[in-house]
């Protein structure tokens, strides 16, 4: 087991290297030399050359890559042109807010989705099973940003129940923040919830018809215990393996959803950065999200290895 985890950790090195090279390449092929952009239009060529030397742009590409990587490990992601602040600081202040809605959305999706999937597997062909099938289809096809817009239209414009913009303030009490979080989280959770429901349903259907479940029932074990302690345990590895993939989808969804709800996280920052061509910020933000994604899928994989009795060495 330990060896497997080590092997998985070693696989991480090339992945991170690829991620770094992709973000490095972006800065090298974007239109416009960063030095001349910084110096402004009609700048003295000597000033540009000086800036190039200062930014290390006169060195060879492999050297530049090494400098880039070592800067990143020092926490130096460059300076945002737009905010005129270190990119690292900006990301640090924004990423907790994005993680807040992605993780809450994912947890909501996990709980409701597995519940729906389990119930519909146990009552095959009942109304709840049909609902589950339709729901998992809709959830996979509805555009998350459109659902966001429609929920604003319904709950904020028409009914006036919930606030539309921002994340509220903790000074106004926890309720303020929670009411701002409710719609973004629900929108985000829809697509993963559909996937969880579908996965749980199919893997529960595979297990509940097994002989050992029938044997447990015959021995007079409580139904609740049979389902949650024995059948669900076998469906769990499948759900965990889906969880890792869903996180990436949630991140993608968060970038779009944040823009609709003006949630002050990474997504709104990235879209501002895109509109102002703030390349240092785009690069830093994307690198951070990719690394977070890699880290969480690593944790998921390790949990999967620990939880799945079929993997044993």
């Amino acid at each position, binding site marked *: 087991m330990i060896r497997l985890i080590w092997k998985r950790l070693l696989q991480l090195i*090339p992945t991170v290297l690829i991620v770094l090279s992709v973000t490095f390449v972006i800065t090298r092929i974007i239109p416009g030399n960063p030095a001349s952009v910084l110096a402004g239009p009609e700048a003295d060529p000597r000033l540009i050359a000086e800036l190039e030397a200062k930014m290390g742009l006169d060195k060879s590409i492999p050297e530049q890559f090494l400098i880039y990587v070592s800067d990143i490990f020092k926490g130096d992601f460059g300076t945002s042109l737009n905010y005129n602040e270190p990119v690292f600081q900006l990301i640090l202040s924004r990423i907790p807010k994005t993680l807040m809605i992605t993780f809450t959305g994912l947890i909501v999706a996990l709980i409701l989705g597995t519940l729906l999937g389990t119930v519909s597997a146990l009552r095959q062909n009942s109304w709840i099973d049909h609902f589950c099938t339709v729901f998992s289809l809709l959830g996979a*096809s509805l555009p998350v940003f459109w659902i966001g817009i429609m929920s604003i239209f319904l709950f904020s414009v028409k009914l006036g129940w919930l606030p539309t913009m921002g994340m509220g303030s903790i000074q106004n009490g926890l309720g303020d923040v929670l009411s701002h979080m409710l719609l973004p989280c629900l929108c985000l959770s829809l697509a993963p919830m559909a996937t969880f429901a579908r996965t749980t349903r199919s893997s529960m259907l595979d297990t509940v018809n097994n002989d050992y479940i029938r044997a447990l029932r015959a021995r007079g074990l409580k139904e609740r215990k049979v389902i949650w302690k024995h059948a669900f345990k076998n469906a769990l590895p499948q759900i965990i393996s889906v969880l890792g993939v869903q996180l990436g989808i949630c991140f993608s969804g968060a*970038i779009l959803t944040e823009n609709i709800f003006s949630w002050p996280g990474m997504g709104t920052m*990235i879209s501002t950065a*895109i509109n102002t061509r703030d390349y240092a910020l*785009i690069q830093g933000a*994307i690198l951070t999200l990719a690394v977070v994604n890699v880290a969480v899928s690593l944790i998921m994989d390790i949990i999967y290895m620990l939880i799945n009795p079929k993997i044993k060495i």
Partner: protein
Amino acid sequence: MKRKEKISSEAVMTSAELLKKEQKVNSFWKKFVRNKSAVVGLVIVGILVIMALFSSVLSPYDPEALDLKNKLLTPFSPGHLFGTDEFGRDLLSRIIYGSRMSILIAAGSSVVGCLIGMVIGILAGYCGGVVDSVLMRIVDGLFAFPSILLSIVLVTVLGNGALNVILALGISAVPKFARVVRGQFTVLRNEEFCNAERVLGASHFRLAVVHILPNAISPIIVYFTLNIASAILSEAGLSFLGLGIIAPTPSWGNILRAGNAFLYNKPHLAIIPGIFIFLAVLGFNLMGDGIRDALDPKMKQ
């Protein structure tokens, strides 16, 4: 004499293959049609393709023609079934032309992603060993980026426009295809029929492309169809963020982006494009699921 024999045996082979193929198509089609939701998907996709192909005939107005006297009309206004936008452009015409953009980008990017992914997957799966490890680590690296992020990055680098969006979404789809194809090839290359071909002296290229690929094609077709659905979503998402297809060229995403600003007074400008995005994605998803069930019921994941 020898040559004649070879030709005749080839002719027999092809006719036998043709017969087999025909039977396969027939049974596939029958299975597909028996599945109601698959047929619904096919109908939706069919309507979309007709909309995309005959946009210029079907749309009542020029999608980019301004008419400032008739701006922000509500749906069912005379002459404008879906109303007009903030510049008086006919929404129905813009939606119809938007379908052309969506289908073009979704299909184009799926072709790009599928082809590159297939090359990587075939090389990795067939060669195995070091080639496999190196290629798959690269794919893992690409997979680390949440998909929309990778497309955002690529469009930012490449610039806006349909062709660049096709490239960006195509490259973002590569990891998925590469993994599927590789998975098939690692299993199939050790099958009995491959060993037989190897003993008969088939070249690596022939073995991989002529013998293994046809056996691996079912999941590729399914992924291709499902990828069109997710590419429609991604394209809409990109245009919604203001990347990719830039107004006045209509795309469902940028119509929705523009409509979002009028949510309070003219909600139809945001509701209608969203419904079309949803229906298109639903159609391709249903069709993809239908193809999967008809090709191989065991493939369900």
